[in-house]
C-alpha cells in the first residue's frame, strides 16, 4: 500500500513545497508546461521500462535519440529541398526514417545481446558509442536546420480539443505500451523473462524472440520521443539525447520499476517522469544552479535505488 502511494504523495508534497517559494509553479500556464514536459520524459521512461522489466538495460537511449533526430531532420530537409513535391511527403518520410532507425538500433541491441547471450549492458554501451558517432558524423557536429515548419506545427504546436499534440502522442504511445504489458500474453511474458528467466524458458516462451521484441519496441518508442523533441526545437540536434539516459532510468526507478527485472509498469514510468519534471521545473523557477540540479538528480537516483532494494526485500518476504 505504502509503495503505491509514496511517489504520488511525494509529488504532491514537492509541488506544494515549491509553491510556497515560487507560487508561479501552480499557475495554469506552468502546469500545462509541466505536463507537456512530462510527456517527453514519460515516453523515454516507458521505453526504458520495457527493457528494465526483462532485467535488461538500454544504455543507448540518449545517443539513439540524438541520432534519430539528425536522421529525421536530414531526410526531411533533403526530400523537401530536392523534389518539388508537397512538403508533407518529406515529413512523412522523415518520420518513417526516424522510426526505422530506432527499430534498427533496438534490433541490434536485442539480437546481439539475446543471440549471443551477452550482457545487454555492454552491447547497449557499444551502440551508445555507435549512435553518438553516427549522429555527430552525419550532422557535422552542428544542428540540422531548415526542417519543414509543418513538422513542428503538427508535432509540437498542434492541438486537438485544445490539448497539445505532444501530450496526445506521448499519451497514446504510453497507453499502447501499458496495454501491451498489462493485457497481452506477450507483455506478461516479458515480466516472467525478467523475473525468472529459467522458468520462462521451461514454460516454452521463446525468450530470445521476446527479448528482441522488447528492445526493438523500446528503441522505436524512444525514436518517437526523439521526433517529438525535434519538433520542439525545429531542427535536428546531435546533442538532443544529452542527459536523457540518466533521466529515463531515474524516472523509471523512482517511479517504482525494479532494476532486478520482473516488476514495473508504465504507470510507474509516468509517475517517475512527473516527479523528475516537477523537481526540475521547481528548481528552475527557484533559480537553482545547473550543477546543483545535477547533484539533486543524483541524490534522487541513489535514494530511489535504496527504496527499490528495501521494497524488493519486502516483496520477497511477503
Amino acid at each position, binding site marked *: 500500500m505504502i509503495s503505491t502511494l509514496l511517489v504520488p504523495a511525494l509529488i504532491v508534497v514537492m509541488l506544494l513545497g515549491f509553491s510556497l517559494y515560487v507560487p508561479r509553479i501552480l499557475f495554469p500556464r506552468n502546469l500545462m508546461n509541466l505536463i507537456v514536459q512530462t510527456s517527453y520524459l514519460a515516453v523515454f521512461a516507458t521505453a526504458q521500462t520495457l527493457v528494465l522489466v526483462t532485467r535488461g538495460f538500454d544504455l543507448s537511449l540518449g545517443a539513439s535519440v540524438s541520432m534519430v533526430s539528425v536522421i529525421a531532420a536530414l531526410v526531411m530537409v533533403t526530400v523537401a529541398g530536392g523534389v518539388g513535391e508537397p512538403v508533407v511527403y518529406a515529413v512523412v518520410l522523415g518520420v518513417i526514417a526516424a522510426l526505422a532507425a530506432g527499430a534498427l538500433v533496438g534490433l541490434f541491441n536485442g539480437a546481439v545481446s539475446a543471440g549471443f547471450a551477452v*550482457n545487454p*549492458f555492454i552491447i547497449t554501451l557499444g551502440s*551508445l558509442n555507435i549512435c*553518438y558517432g553516427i549522429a555527430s*558524423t552525419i550532422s557535422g557536429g552542428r544542428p540540422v536546420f531548415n526542417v519543414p515548419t509543418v513538422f513542428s506545427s503538427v508535432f509540437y504546436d498542434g492541438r486537438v480539443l485544445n490539448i497539445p499534440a505532444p501530450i496526445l502522442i506521448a499519451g497514446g504511445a504510453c497507453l499502447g505500451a501499458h496495454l501491451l504489458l498489462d493485457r497481452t500474453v506477450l507483455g506478461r511474458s516479458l515480466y516472467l523473462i525478467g523475473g525468472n528467466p529459467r522458468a520462462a524458458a521451461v514454460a516454452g516462451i521463446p525468450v530470445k524472440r521476446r527479448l528482441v521484441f522488447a528492445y526493438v519496441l523500446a528503441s522505436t518508442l524512444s525514436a518517437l520521443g526523439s521526433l517529438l523533441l525535434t519538433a520542439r526545437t525545429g531542427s535536428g540536434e546531435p546533442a538532443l539525447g544529452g542527459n536523457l539516459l540518466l533521466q529515463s532510468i531515474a524516472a523509471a526507478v523512482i517511479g517504482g520499476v525494479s532494476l532486478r527485472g520482473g516488476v514495473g509498469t508504465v504507470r510507474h514510468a509516468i509517475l517517475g517522469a512527473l516527479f523528475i519534471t516537477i523537481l526540475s521545473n521547481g528548481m528552475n523557477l527557484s533559480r537553482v544552479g545547473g550543477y546543483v*540540479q545535477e547533484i539533486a538528480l543524483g541524490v534522487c537516483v541513489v535514494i530511489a535505488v535504496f527504496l527499490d*532494494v528495501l521494497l524488493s526485500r519486502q516483496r520477497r518476504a511477503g
Partner: protein
Amino acid sequence: MIRNSTWAPSRPERAFRIGVGEAGLLPIMVSLLIAVLVIFEPRFATVQNAINILRNASFLMIVAVGQMLVMIVGGLDMSIGATMALTSVASVLVMTAVAGALPDAPNLAILTGIAAGLGCGLAVGVINGLCVALMRVPPFMVTLGMASVVGGVALMLTSGVPVYGLPQPFIDEVGRALWLGLPTAFYVALAIVVGLALGLRFTRPGVRTLAVGGNRQAAAVSGVPTGVYLLGAYVACSLLAAVASLLLTAQIGSGQGAIGDQLTLESIAAAVIAGVSLRGGAGRPELVALGAIFLLVLTNAMDLMQVDSKIQSIWLGAFVVLAVVLEALGRGVSRRG
C-alpha cells in the same frame, strides 16, 4: 567437465584453444593491429609516437585496473570520471590555497594537495562500497547516481572553469618529467599493474577478492569477510581513479572539472576487451593494461589516418561489441571441452 570418450576436438577447435590459450584473443589482436599499422602507416612506427601512446595509455591503465577490481567482485563503477574531476579540482584548490598561505613551502602545498585528492577518492570509494556492501544496492545505479552528485560538486567548485595556480614544481616533477624518455605516469601505471598482477595471484587478499567475485556464498561460508572485500574493491577503484587524476592534472597543469568524462566508459571497454567478465571472479591486470594499450593504439591509428574523432566513437563501440561477442563464442567453444 564430462568428457565423452569418443569425442575429440576438431582441428580448428584445437588450434583455437592452443592459439588463444588462457590469455584470450587480446594479445593476438594487439599484435595484428600493431603489425598492420607498422606496415601501412610509417608515422606510427616512430619512437615519439610510441611514447605518446604509452603516456596516454598510462592514465587509462590505472583507471582500467581499478574498474577491473570492481568488476571482479561482480560490480561496476560508473563514477570514475566524476571522481577524477573532483580529485583534480579539489587537489588544485588545496594546493593553491596552501601555497598562497605558506609561499615558502611549495612541497607542503603539493603534499596537502595530493592528500586532498586521495581523500576525495577515498570518500567516494567508501560511499560506493558501503552502499553496495551494506545496502546491497545495484552497483551500476549507485555509482551512476554518485557520478551525478560528485560531478556536480566538482563543477560547482570550479563554476566550470579550469583552476589555475598549480605549484610549478608539481607540474615539472610529476606531470611533465621524463625518465628514460617516458613520463612519470607510465612508471606509476607499470608499478600498479605489476603490483596488482602479483597481488591478485599470490597474496591472500588478492585470492580472496577473486573468490568473493567468483562465488560470494562459497567465500562467505569459507570465512571470508565478503563485505570488507566488496568495500575494499570500490575504495581501491576510486583511489586509483584519484591517482590517475592527480597524474593527469599534473600533466595538464590545471584543475579540470570535466577531466575523465570519457575515461569511465573507456575503462569498462578496456576491461571487457581484456576478457574481464561482468559476472565477476576473473581478471588479469596485465591483460587489462594490454586492453588499454589496444584502445590507445586504435585511437592513435585513427588519429594518424585522420579519422574524425566522431567516427572513432563508432569504431570504439563496434570493437567493444565484437570483443564481447567473441568472448561469448569462445566460452561456447571451451564449454564443449
